[in-house]
């Protein structure tokens, strides 16, 4: 990252809209994320959190608006006032620096844990197999799964699969990590091991945008929290403010509903 990263936003989102047919999922989102910042997005399901995340690496194509990564627009380029789709290779190059962790892991079932991590460096970064595998093993070790290197995904628990998926994203040395409800598909007893890995990454200074329903975790880890509803940002602020003194009635109603369901704050640790 450039050395003036502290001043310039790593991610800048301007006037983001996304429609699926008649359904307007994002209705004008503006957002900036600084390098090193940990931003959590909370909100009811259907509020547009996941879509927002998927727009950032252009897995979802915005209907309108602009997304800049390091001042570089992703997905489209301006050419003489018109917007032109980026070439596949350019888009791929930008995505390579944005790690994404999916709710349902999406490990590649035909590759071992080690090769799931190494395939990106080998195929995208054109590293040698030996080098990519060595680095991949170090990453597996970092998420506590070096001993599972030769195991295929279907032999791993959900929590283990998600840790491999995180290692797979890290292998690309991303400047930014996106977590899309990374623990929502896990059995409760497996949530902790994944959150531990994410906490460790946060402590190392990784920039991350996290969509989650784990409120205690969000409060612990975030520099800033955004509450979204109906495709808009309703409220944002530091975690203690959002969680303990929310300004908006909708935020309060949401938190009350969530806290009633989760045995807040004991659910995570």
């Amino acid at each position, binding site marked *: 990252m450039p050395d003036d990263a502290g001043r310039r936003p790593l991610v800048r989102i301007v006037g983001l809209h996304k429609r699926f047919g008649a359904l307007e999922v994002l209705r004008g989102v503006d957002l900036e994320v600084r390098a090193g910042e940990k931003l959590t997005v909370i909100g009811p399901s259907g509020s547009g959190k996941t879509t927002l995340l998927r727009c950032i690496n252009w897995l979802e194509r915005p209907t309108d608006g602009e997304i800049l990564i390091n001042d570089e627009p992703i997905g489209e380029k301006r050419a003489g006032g018109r917007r032109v789709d980026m070439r596949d290779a350019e888009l791929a190059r930008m995505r390579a620096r944005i*790690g994404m962790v*999916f709710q349902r892991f999406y490990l590649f079932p035909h590759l071992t844990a080690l090769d799931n991590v190494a395939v990106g460096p080998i195929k*995208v*970064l054109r590293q040698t197999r030996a080098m990519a595998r060595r680095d991949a093993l170090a990453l597996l070790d970092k998420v506590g799964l070096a001993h599972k290197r030769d195991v295929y995904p279907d032999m791993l628990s959900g929590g283990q699969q998600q840790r491999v998926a995180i290692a797979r994203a890290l292998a690309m040395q991303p400047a930014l990590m996106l977590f899309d409800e990374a623990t929502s598909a896990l059995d409760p007893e497996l949530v902790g091991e994944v959150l531990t890995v994410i906490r460790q990454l946060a402590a190392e200074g990784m920039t991350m945008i996290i969509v989650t329903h784990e409120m205690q975790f969000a409060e612990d880890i975030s520099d800033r929290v955004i509450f979204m509803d109906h495709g808009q940002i309703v409220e944002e602020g530091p975690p203690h403010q959002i969680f303990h003194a929310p300004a908006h009635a909708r935020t309060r109603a949401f938190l009350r509903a969530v806290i009633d369901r989760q045995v807040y704050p004991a659910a995570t640790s």
Partner: protein
Amino acid sequence: MNAGAWERFAAQFPYLIETLLLGAEMTVIVTLGGFVVAVLLGLAGAGLRTARLRWLRALGTLYVDVFRAVPVLTQLFIIYFGLAELGARLDPIPAAIIGFGINGGAYLTEVFRAGIEAVHRGQSEAALAIGMTPAQALRVIVLPQAMRVVVPPLGNFAIGLLKDTSVASSVAAPELSFRAHMLVDQTYLSTQIYLTVAALYLAMSLPLARLVRVIERRMARSRVA
């Protein structure tokens, strides 16, 4: 049944079998040629069927719907006799290879498409997310997984094609069935010759079926799917 026929058959067997084996060789060539053309067209067709642009998808659908609804015999006649009428005379063997290729391509389009669609969309998203291009994601992540779905019907297609090439005898392609008709015309030994022909087809199709099963089993074991 007259015993004399079998005696004549036995007496002429060396000549008959030699001629039929020449035909069997051509059957293999037409099958291989048709298979290669069909696989290429099937991949192209699957590309169309899964394309982003609607008119490309429509083109793929048209190809599949038309060529799967018309008998391959009719398609062969159009390519061989029909094109000759328009001045584009093809030799029987290329005509047969093209005909079976186009016909089979429509069938394989659906096979390949099903294979691609059997791989969860999240797989290609995860590949894109680590910076692969769409082409890389297809090649490195999606296609290897799709193979598991594709190989069994692909194998059955090859076996079916081997037998279907018998129809090419009607456009005078000198394959096994054509040679058999000629020999029957010469000798009137229809039962004997067609039974020999059946045995020769079995000798080709049974090992092929075995091979397909071995590949399927090996793929089921290794997950490279």
